[in-house]
């Protein structure tokens, strides 16, 4: 059998296949055990040859994992446990009906949905990039090729000219997906025109934002798409060497990329004389060592060179002098994987998606107090409201929406009346936040915005490289002030000083980390000033989070004496019996808020 025949036989149209999501969330929920159970039971039933079992990359609906999809029927089962597998095999593989209890139930209704395309979570997305995850085993280059992979690389290096490729990327309007949003084509052109050899093509897989896992899912779930994008870029720029910098905490991504690189080399799609042409391109993987600052371009390059991750002033761009002092083009993972799509479908097609100045789609990690947490992809320009409510299903527990934090530690918080803002590079920045690399954290009324500012600021004091006075000393003092305020020792002057230092850090830092570090603080000061004032003037935390500024008590009128709070209290501070309103002892209460979380009647109030 030829290679082509072998590949085609392996993916015969209509052949039954069970796909299990192998993304981090589903894995943590015993997803691999589910896969193992399928293999065992199918083997036991002598169906091992007839039915494929495929572990895929992240399929996005993390709140409902582990996700199992049966093909070719395209039936989606959610929250599958290993104990459910026998029933699925009997009912849906041997038989042809559906296990109702394992299908998705539309909230607030009795309606059961078993097609991904019928689910609001998926239907409202435009999954240009991440849809492919579901179709492939990331360890299989054949799977990638079967869904059209490497077709763009072939087209690029056999039919197109380097300048033409750069032209397409420019016209497509693609902008960097790592946070800064710099026009990709323009960056490529600058590097192509720079003097020096060798030139380097780098992939930024550091993804340091807490809660972000977009790049993680792409590197783990579709590693070949990263290689293909980089190869096309290298060909266009005139580079023969690439590095993928992966944060230390992503060992699965490193492994899957390594396997992919070896497979691509074996197939002549990477390495020397790709597809028999003059073009050679070799990729190496460089691992980070636990520093958020190494996501910054010059710090990343210093790290690859073997130095501490310390940024430098970018008066001379890295496209001119970057890695080892040579012309370098660095792009984020998500930026790279958009390239094969542009080459395949054409720049006009791509430019038709998105808003005026932000083309294409963006992958977001939608997390926090939202019902449908997971990985979502929408066209640029989609309103925040649509993402959080139509896709996200609204606030978890049906509580009141308070704010959405976008852009990780470099971003800011936006309140309710900004929910209609379209999400793209420019609109969120104008409002005082930024889209960033795609982190989106939904916050409800039980979130203290001052505490949010403190959380991100503290994170940044630890991650700052410490080189420049502005970032190092400025963030230290901002953290001090935020501690004071959240512990009830702050005064009005502190709030003013906090803002002053924040603006200073913004304008005086060397690098992007420092320049955006004040965003969480400044955006919460802008939209939630009343909370800061409550903390320093009335010495109250309106959200009931800051323990020194909160007392928990039970509203006798609402209390139904169900006893849930008594059970939840870790320090036995709640007393009461049947039909007797419960009482919290202020001496014992440690302000953890557990009672408030479990009370079904909203009887626990904070003051």
């Amino acid at each position: 059998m030829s290679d082509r025949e072998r590949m085609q036989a392996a993916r015969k149209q209509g052949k039954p296949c069970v796909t299990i999501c192998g993304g981090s969330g589903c894995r943590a929920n015993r997803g691999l055990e589910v896969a193992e159970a399928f293999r065992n039971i199918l083997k036991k039933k002598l169906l091992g040859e007839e039915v494929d079992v495929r572990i895929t990359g992240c399929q996005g609906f993390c709140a409902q994992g582990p996700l199992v999809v049966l093909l070719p029927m395209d039936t989606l089962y959610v929250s599958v446990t290993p104990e459910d597998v026998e029933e699925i095999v009997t009912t849906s593989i041997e038989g042809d009906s559906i296990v109702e209890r394992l299908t998705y139930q539309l909230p607030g209704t009795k309606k059961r949905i078993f097609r991904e395309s019928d689910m609001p979570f998926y239907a409202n997305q435009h999954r240009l990039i991440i849809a492919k995850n579901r179709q492939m085993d990331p360890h299989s280059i054949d799977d990638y090729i079967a869904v059209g992979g490497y077709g763009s690389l072939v087209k690029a290096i056999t039919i197109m000219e380097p300048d033409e490729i750069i032209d397409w990327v420019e016209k497509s309007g693609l902008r960097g997906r790592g946070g800064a949003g710099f026009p990709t084509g323009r960056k490529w052109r600058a590097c192509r025109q720079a003097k020096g050899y060798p030139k380097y093509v780098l992939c930024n897989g550091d993804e340091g934002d807490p809660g972000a896992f977009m790049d993680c899912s792409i590197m783990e779930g579709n590693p070949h798409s990263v290689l293909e994008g980089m190869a096309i870029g290298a060909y266009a720029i005139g580079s023969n060497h690439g590095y993928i910098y992966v944060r230390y905490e992503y060992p699965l991504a490193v492994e899957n990329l390594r396997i992919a690189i070896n497979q691509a080399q074996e197939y002549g799609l990477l390495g020397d004389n790709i597809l028999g042409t003059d073009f050679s391109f070799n990729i190496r993987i460089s691992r980070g060592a636990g520093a958020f600052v190494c996501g910054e371009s010059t710090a990343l390059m210093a790290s690859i060179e073997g130095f501490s991750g310390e940024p430098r002033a970018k008066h001379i761009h890295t496209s001119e002098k970057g890695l080892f002092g040579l012309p370098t083009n660095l792009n984020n993972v998500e930026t790279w994987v958009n390239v094969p799509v542009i080459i395949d479908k054409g720049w006009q097609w791509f430019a038709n998606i998105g808003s005026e100045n932000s083309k294409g789609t963006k992958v977001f990690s939608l997390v926090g107090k939202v019902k449908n947490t997971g990985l979502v992809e929408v066209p640029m320009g989609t309103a925040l409201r649509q993402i959080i409510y139509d896709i996200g299903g609204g606030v978890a527990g049906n509580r009141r929406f308070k704010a959405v934090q976008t852009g990780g530690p470099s971003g800011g918080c936006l309140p309710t009346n900004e929910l209609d803002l379209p999400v793209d590079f420019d609109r969120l920045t104008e409002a005082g936040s930024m889209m960033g690399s795609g982190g989106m954290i939904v916050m409800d009324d039980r979130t203290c915005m001052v505490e949010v500012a403190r959380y991100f600021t503290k994170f940044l004091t630890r991650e700052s490289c410490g080189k420049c006075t502005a970032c190092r000393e400025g963030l230290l003092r901002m953290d001090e002030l935020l501690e004071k305020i959240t512990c009830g020792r702050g005064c009005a002057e502190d709030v003013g000083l906090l803002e002053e230092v924040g603006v200073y850090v913004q304008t005086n830092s060397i690098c992007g980390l420092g320049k955006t570090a004040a965003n969480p603080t400044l955006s919460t000061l802008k939209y939630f000033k009343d909370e800061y004032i409550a903390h320093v003037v009335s010495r109250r935390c309106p959200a009931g989070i800051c323990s020194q500024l909160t007392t928990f008590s039970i509203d006798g009128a609402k209390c139904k004496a169900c006893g849930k709070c008594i059970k939840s209290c870790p320090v036995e501070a709640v007393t009461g019996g049947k039909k007797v309103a419960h009482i919290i002892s202020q001496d014992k209460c440690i302000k953890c808020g557990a009672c408030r979380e479990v009370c079904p009647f909203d009887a626990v109030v904070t003051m």
Partner: protein
Amino acid sequence: MGLVKTIIDVKEIEVERDRWALDVAREMGIYIPTLCHHPALQPYGACRLCVVEVTKGKGTWLATSCDLPIREGLSIRTNTPEVIKSRKMTIELLWARAPAAECIQRLAKELGVEKPRFSLRDDLGRCILCGLCVRVCNELIGVSALSFTMRGVERKVKTPFDRASDICIGCNACVAVCPTGHVVSVDKGAVRDIETWKTKLEMVRCEVCGRAYMPVKELEYLQAKLGEQTFLEKVCPMCRKSQTVACLEDVTANKEDIECAVSEYRGMKN
């Protein structure tokens, strides 16, 4: 490299492309304070005191002038309210970090800061993390006995594992460049004690007067660099001067005699 036109404080001038803005401004007589800058070292851009307002095209932003290369189309203002405000905050933060550093306080008062609005730290000595000690040891001396360790607010200059350095040559360059006097080195008899780096070095004694005048390691380092013939006589600078004077005293105002005596003196060394 070619000349480019630039405007500094409204004045249009032509300078060689890629010259550092700080140097050009200072040559024009403009005052720009610095702490981490040293003419003998590569610019580092860490202290942020030398910030200026830069305009290129439609954008204006603050940038350190010490590492800003002058290029076509750049326009610079060194004294705007934004610049002054920034410099004041920088020095205020450094004051709060190292209150024992008197020079910082003096500079602060010069820049118009009366007192810091932040709590004073007393655990960092006078170090402002300008990096001059690290850089001089690395770039100029070539020994690299010092390095930055840790990250962010934990960042400190240390020898490896904060122990006595076994490669330090005791040249005291780090002492000479430290702007705040944080780096301290004391000669105690025939031992140089660089207290800040917990490093003690044995010193060479002068063959003439017996005074300890140079660390043995420094002498060996220089010999290795400059050739075996250097320092054949271990004579301290004071005695060497006396020797030279004694040599010349025997000579009249005659030029030929002086030349003869000098070459004779040089001959003594070979």
